[in-house]
């Protein structure tokens, strides 16, 4: 048993740190630290900086131009990025679609789409959920009917994150309505500029236009945009979901979030003393930190198993549940730390246009608290994760 990183891992960490110190734009990390959004251009800029270094594809195999880091390296990188308040890497193309294409896509699809993901030509969004198909994803209804060398797609996707920026959407569509639910689904790549597609924004409760509804009205999609075999889409989607779950614990985000709370608690005062000395608030912070320390080690235990070639099973469900609980608790602390200055609705501040009201760290905290309720809902809700754990462990 040895809790510390090896020499090589430490050297790798230093390399990542140096890179972040040199290349992560200061105005960008300031915004992330304050909880502001950086917009499409911001995300594209950060992707291009990473790509230049060859690190954008850090999870990809070498044969596709990836860095092919192992699980420990990936973890170190993600941890350091979060600690430096680097923007989150937009996952849809890089870590959701790419692994599917690499495993199930045709050579033509790999050659065409993968480079465009890296160089930022294509922004992808994820078209899985529908109004009637959330947790029960396999009940999805969006229909694709073969018509010559096209599929004609009709239906509706919902909750597509950042679909307003997207050039392409990868969709689960029903190609065989007669088959058993899971067996009639296909995986289709659709150009967002195809006639018949309409994107309507959904404003979330914190005021951000983060997700969308995407409507398909007789949208013609060339058959070569089918990934793998027809009616095998569910298999690919499940494969993708295992990728969606790496880094799921969000340890780095939690640690950065907790650091931010501590900083605020040093600046805020309650009864004339720094808030950080208030016994109730200090106890709350300590409790979360204790949970986080343990979860961080759970995370590393699972990562080192993964690095040794053992695929994580229910452990990723466990990390998702505990990780989101901890992150949401930190959001609650952040909101409470700022007192009455949580009340101003700072949508403008989130977008970075207006002068902040009150201390600059106060602007986005209430919005973040509400926005991050999503963490326990999407990517398989915490109830679904608990169901998976119970089912696996009790063989139900």
């Amino acid at each position, binding site marked *: 048993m040895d809790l510390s990183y090896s020499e090589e891992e430490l050297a790798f960490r230093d390399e990542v740190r140096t890179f972040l110190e040199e290349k992560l734009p200061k105005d960008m990390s300031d915004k992330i630290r304050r909880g502001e959004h950086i917009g499409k251009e911001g995300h594209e800029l950060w992707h291009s900086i990473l790509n230049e270094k060859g690190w954008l594809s850090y999870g990809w195999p070498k044969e596709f131009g990836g860095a092919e880091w192992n699980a420990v390296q990936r973890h170190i990188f993600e941890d350091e990025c979060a600690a430096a308040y680097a923007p989150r890497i937009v996952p849809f193309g890089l870590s959701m679609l790419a692994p599917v294409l690499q495993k199930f896509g045709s050579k033509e699809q790999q050659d065409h789409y993968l480079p465009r993901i890296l160089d930022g030509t294509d922004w992808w969004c994820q078209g899985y959920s529908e109004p009637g198909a959330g947790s029960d994803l396999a*009940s999805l209804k969006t229909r694709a009917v073969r018509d010559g060398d096209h599929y004609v797609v009709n239906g509706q996707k919902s909750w597509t994150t950042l679909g307003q920026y997207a050039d392409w959407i990868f969709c689960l569509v029903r190609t065989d309505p007669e088959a058993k639910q899971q067996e009639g689904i296909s995986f289709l790549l659709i150009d967002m500029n195809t006639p018949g597609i309409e994107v309507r924004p959904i*404003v979330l409760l914190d005021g951000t236009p983060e997700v969308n509804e995407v409507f398909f009205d007789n949208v013609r999609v060339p058959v070569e945009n089918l990934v793998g075999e027809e009616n095998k889409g569910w298999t690919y989607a499940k494969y993708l979901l295992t990728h969606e779950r790496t880094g799921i614990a969000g340890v780095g985000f939690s640690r950065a979030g907790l650091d931010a709370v501590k900083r605020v608690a040093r600046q805020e005062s*309650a009864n*004339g003393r720094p808030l950080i000395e208030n016994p109730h608030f200090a106890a709350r912070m300590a409790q979360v930190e204790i949970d986080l320390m343990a979860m961080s080690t759970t995370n590393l235990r699972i990562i080192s198993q993964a690095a040794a070639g053992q695929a994580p099973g229910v452990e990723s469900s466990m990390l998702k549940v505990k990780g989101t609980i901890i992150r*949401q608790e930190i959001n609650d602390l952040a909101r409470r730390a700022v007192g009455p200055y949580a009340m101003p609705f700072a949508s403008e501040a989130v977008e970075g246009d207006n002068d902040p*009201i*009150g201390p600059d760290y106060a602007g986005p905290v209430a919005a973040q608290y509400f926005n991050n309720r999503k963490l326990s*809902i999407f990517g398989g809700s915490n109830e679904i994760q608990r169901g998976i754990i119970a089912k696996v462990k009790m063989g139900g």
Partner: protein
Amino acid sequence: MDFNLTEERQMLQDTLRRFLSERYTTTERNAIIDSDTGLSAEIWGELAELGVIGALFTEDQGGFGGAGYDISTVFEELGRAGVVEPFLDTVILGGGLIAALGNDTQHSLVEEVIGGGLHLALAHGEPASRYDLSRVETTAKVDGDDIVLEGRKAVVINAEAAGYLIVSARESGGPFSLDGISLFLVPADASGLTMQGYPMMSGGRAAEVTLDNVRVPASARLGAEGAGFQALTDVVARANVALAAEAMGAMESATELTREYLMTRKQFGRPIGTFQALAHRFSDLLIELEQARSAVTNAAGHLDSDDRDRQIAAARNLIARTGRLVAEEAIQMHGGIAMTQEYELAHIAKRIVMTDHRFGDADYHLERFIGLSAA
């Protein structure tokens, strides 16, 4: 022992509930939130006409209620409908202070408030004061016949709509002393008074208020010189009953919306409420809601008792804890739909949670409760 509302209060509740359910729809309310003023003058007038404002003042003050249970009855309904209009600010805080302290001339403003023709705002909190009622650094200095006010007031709710701001300022003592705080009725258009207005997370508007050499006549003083702290404490006690009742009303709505959704939303071919993982948590919400209702009953019933502050601290602490639970669980059990701005629950959940940030969160009231229980 009698836990029923009096006939008058029952009527008030029925009338208000009917009016709000017909008039204050989600669409209407969301339009109000998006409007420049953040409130509906029309609905305010209609509610005044229904007697909702009068119910919050005693007969001596020109109303026909004013007791703890009047406050809790009205605010439970306002909370249930997610009303964003500033009843707390104009009526309980502003009107309450003038009714308690005003001389005859000043008292005429209470009539205007009851009639629905005047808005007020309490400009008390400052950038560094957090929830501490005694921390006042804004100063008031006598200069001839005038008084000159200097300072900054933070998150002054309803400042832009108000005809007058009730400004607290220090005439003596250090930043935390209980003595030396005076209250002044300052016209919103007074020269030297500037506002930076903004919308709030859970609806309505507030402003950062700067007082730069604001001159008012000595007659603008509300109550005795330096004796404002006690009056503030009393009026904030009433505000805390109102806030607790409002949050409890909103919790009722959140629970009811969840009940309906659990019974109608289907996944895996069945209503999601049939999954025990959700059904039990729904039951927990109902259990906590009854706790919240009793906490409000305790606080409202002790508004005029010696145990007032301890009861109120208990209620606000309990409501803060159960409110957060109800808001978060209601969202979670709805799934994505509850994350959307236009869905009723989103607003209701924000009303509940943001209550924490007015006059103290769970920790603040816990500390007060401990302190008052030890005394």
